[in-house]
């Protein structure tokens, strides 16, 4: 009898130790993961620096009032637990989550929210976020009736509304107040700050930053969020951001297991070795879907600079750009440049931006004859038989295209363009430049044409006003116009300002659809394909919810865990 009991006990112990994870097993607590980043973080203060590593660090160490879920694009309560909005959408009363503390133990209150907004709009601070937190051109105002409530006022109705607050990390008043008062906020919390000086409400805290090597983050024991089972988050004990500037070395380390994940997507040429690593059971390859950004090709259309250029007379005609759009075979483009992993697009908004993409955007099907007819219509024909079209005065359609040196995708893309346009008589000379030189020329309109992928900061068009508005700093074919240079740009200006102020989502979508139509008809910038984004991470990772926006996995870092 006793033997039987012992046997049963032993059996029970044996069965217990043989832990085959059941599908509903709780994520394991503890462990560390290593992610790679491409550059040094410029600062720990997101309010004054907009580089990607700083953005990532802020996501990991700081909290916001509300969060836009990067996978579902829904607005989620975060540091604000619930809110009431007025009928006209201009006043929102947010109730802060009770019991939240900073990582150094101080209590989180509405004073911190007021402080952060004050810092954003302080002229000495020169915050990079100032332009993104406007409603009707006016700063967002906030007041705090008590320590747990904040009242946000928009000066004018704002389409995105509370979603704008996803851009604002809340910084600790007790740590930065002195710097703001003394006018030193712009240099506060720079990357040389000792980690003990930092505090946040995010899932991790900075343990150490070794310049040139890595940033080490430990879990924040005072993190407010709880797991589904009521236990504390994050699951991980440590998160290391390894600085690996070279993409091939990064890939090698990913394959060998030294890194668990990268913060950028894979290139199409990396697909094969990653697939093999997946077959060997080391990595998991996921397709994120179509990316929200596409490579752009445009001519500088600034009359003040290009007015005297004889080619400008025909470049400024929309028919010229429409002809180019007809001449490019987008299928071939996708196959050659992205090895088939791309979809054709005809505008800056891609199918990857599900909320705002308009499938019926006017298309320009591949038709060389139509392209040539359009060119002939504005007086461009090959009169001397040398394969290049020219206008009546003999000015040839020959352009120098700038692109960034060293990016395989750009080099392949512009090579395909050169071939496709050569067939209809437009000659492109390619000048790959190093990044700094290229940017300098772009800002000065010191170029004929450019091929580059500017990344939009926000999927919501109201977050990209500097691209759409003619006075915008990202309206790159004709930067920062004092008054709209063309009639259609004026119409886009009007529509965009309307949709930014409209509260009805359906109306906003209609207005933006109209904008996309005007853009497609006048084609100031040509888009050809939007790449599918692939991503890989180590099989150790659990709880991965991928997103097409960067960072693809770490946006949800508090729910990541490692396999037992």
């Amino acid at each position, binding site marked *: 009898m006793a033997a039987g009991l012992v046997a049963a006990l032993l059996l029970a112990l044996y069965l217990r130790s043989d832990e085959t994870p059941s599908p509903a097993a709780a994520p394991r607590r503890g462990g560390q993961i290593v992610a790679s980043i491409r550059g040094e973080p*410029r600062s720990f203060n997101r309010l004054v620096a907009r580089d990607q590593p700083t953005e990532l660090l802020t996501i990991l160490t700081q909290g916001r009032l509300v969060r836009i879920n990067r996978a579902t694009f829904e607005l989620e309560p975060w540091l604000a637990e619930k809110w009431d909005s007025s009928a006209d959408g201009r006043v929102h009363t947010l109730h802060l989550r009770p019991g939240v503390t900073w990582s150094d133990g101080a209590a989180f209150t509405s004073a911190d929210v007021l402080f952060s907004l004050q810092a954003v709009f302080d002229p000495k601070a*020169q915050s990079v976020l100032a332009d993104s937190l406007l409603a009707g051109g006016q700063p967002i105002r906030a007041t705090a009736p008590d320590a747990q409530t904040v009242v946000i006022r928009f000066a004018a109705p704002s389409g995105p509304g509370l979603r704008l607050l996803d851009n604002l990390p809340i910084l600790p008043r007790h740590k930065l107040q002195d710097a703001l008062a003394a006018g030193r906020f712009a240099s506060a919390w720079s990357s*040389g700050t000792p980690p003990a000086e930092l505090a946040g409400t995010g899932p991790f805290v900075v343990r150490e930053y070794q310049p*040139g090597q890595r940033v080490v983050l430990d879990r924040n024991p005072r993190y407010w969020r709880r797991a589904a089972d009521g236990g504390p988050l994050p699951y991980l004990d440590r998160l290391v951001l390894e600085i690996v500037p*070279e993409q091939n070395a990064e890939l090698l380390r990913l394959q*060998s297991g*030294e890194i668990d994940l990268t913060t950028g997507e894979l290139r199409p040429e990396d697909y094969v070795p990653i697939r093999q690593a997946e077959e060997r059971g080391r990595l998991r390859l996921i397709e994120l879907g179509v990316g929200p950004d596409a490579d752009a090709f445009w001519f500088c259309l600034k009359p003040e600079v290009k007015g005297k250029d004889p080619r400008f007379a025909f470049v400024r005609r929309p028919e010229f750009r429409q002809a180019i759009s007809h001449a490019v075979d987008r299928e071939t483009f996708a196959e050659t440049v992205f090895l088939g992993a791309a979809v054709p697009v005809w505008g800056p908004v891609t199918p990857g931006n599900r909320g705002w993409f308009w499938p019926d955007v006017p298309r320009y099907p591949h038709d060389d004859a139509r392209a040539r007819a359009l060119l002939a219509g504005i007086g461009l024909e090959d009169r001397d038989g040398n394969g290049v079209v020219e206008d009546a005065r003999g000015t040839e359609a020959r352009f120098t295209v700038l692109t960034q040196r060293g990016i395989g995708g750009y080099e392949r893309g512009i090579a395909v363009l050169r071939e496709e346009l050569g067939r209809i008589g437009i000659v492109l000379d390619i000048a790959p430049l190093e990044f*700094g030189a290229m940017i300098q020329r772009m800002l000065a309109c010191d170029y004929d044409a450019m091929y580059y992928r500017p990344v939009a900061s926000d999927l919501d068009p109201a977050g990209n006003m*500097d691209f759409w508005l003619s006075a915008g*700093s990202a309206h790159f074919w004709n930067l920062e116009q004092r008054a709209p240079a063309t009639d259609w740009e004026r119409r886009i200006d009007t529509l965009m300002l309307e949709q930014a102020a409209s509260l009805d989502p359906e109306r906003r979508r209609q207005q933006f659809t109209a904008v996309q139509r005007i853009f497609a008809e006048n084609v100031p910038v040509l888009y050809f394909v939007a790449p599918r984004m692939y991503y890989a991470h180590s099989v150790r990772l659990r709880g991965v919810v991928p997103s097409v926006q960067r960072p693809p996995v770490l946006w949800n870092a508090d729910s990541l865990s490692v396999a037992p």
Partner: protein
Amino acid sequence: MLVRFLARRVAFALVLVLVVSSAALLLARLAPGDVTSQLGPFASAGEVAGTRARFDLDRTPSGQWLLWLGRASRFDFGDSFLYNRPVRGLVARAAANTAVLAAAALAVATALGIPLGMLSGSRRSAAAALIRGLSLVCLSLPPLLTSLVLVFIAATTRWLPAGGMTSVDALDMRWSAWLADVALHLPLPTLALALPIAATFERLQAQSIGDALQQPFVLAASARGVAPRDLIVRHAWPVSLRPICAVYGLAIGALLSGSFVVEFVTAWPGLGRLMYEALRARDIYLVAGCAAMGGLFLAVGSLIGDLLLAAADPRLRERRAG
């Protein structure tokens, strides 16, 4: 005499450092684009202006130079845009890392190259031919390829870490464990740096010892009955060191100013990699600081080289005295 020689060299070294860093500053202004390109194409005008003011780019090149000179005399070399901290500390730490690597690479290259060169240059055996062949192979492989191959081998075999100077866990280690960790990361970049230099030493040593063995005084000693081993080591070798010493100083200087290719591929946080990142980002004061440190190292290296040369060839010492 030695004191005067040293004093002159030190003075020249300072002038070199000054001229090099000033030239770097000026060139950085001449090259298109500046540090504000790092802010991305869509930075606001205020951001750009603020950054330019912070790095004195709104002044004329000569005005900026004078300002920098004034601060440098107080050992303030400005701030780095990339790393947001004073250039002084960054360059010092990177220089120390590179010095460690350089010392290791030099030691390995000397320990491998000189004896093997003596061996292969003094006889015609199969071993000599094998050494010569290996040297030729190492010499014919550019350092970029060597480092890529080594990193690839390390990554696939996982015998050694495939890059970096410390592991992630180094943070919590004690001194002794930290040293062991660095020692584990050292072989990869050291080999990549040392192999071509070892091959150079081997080739030069083989050639010069071959030449030296043909000298009349060696023949005379051999006729006197000196044993072959002694002939080589005690008579021919010291004379054969001349070209090696010439290259030695240069090798020290070059290693110290950092082979950026190797440091880049193996992610060793040294001066070469820092300089490369600074150049790419147009981080003007960091570039000047790195150039200054590189100049200093080169001056030190060539000084050591010249001293070695004088030590190896007494006639030079006399010439210096005269």
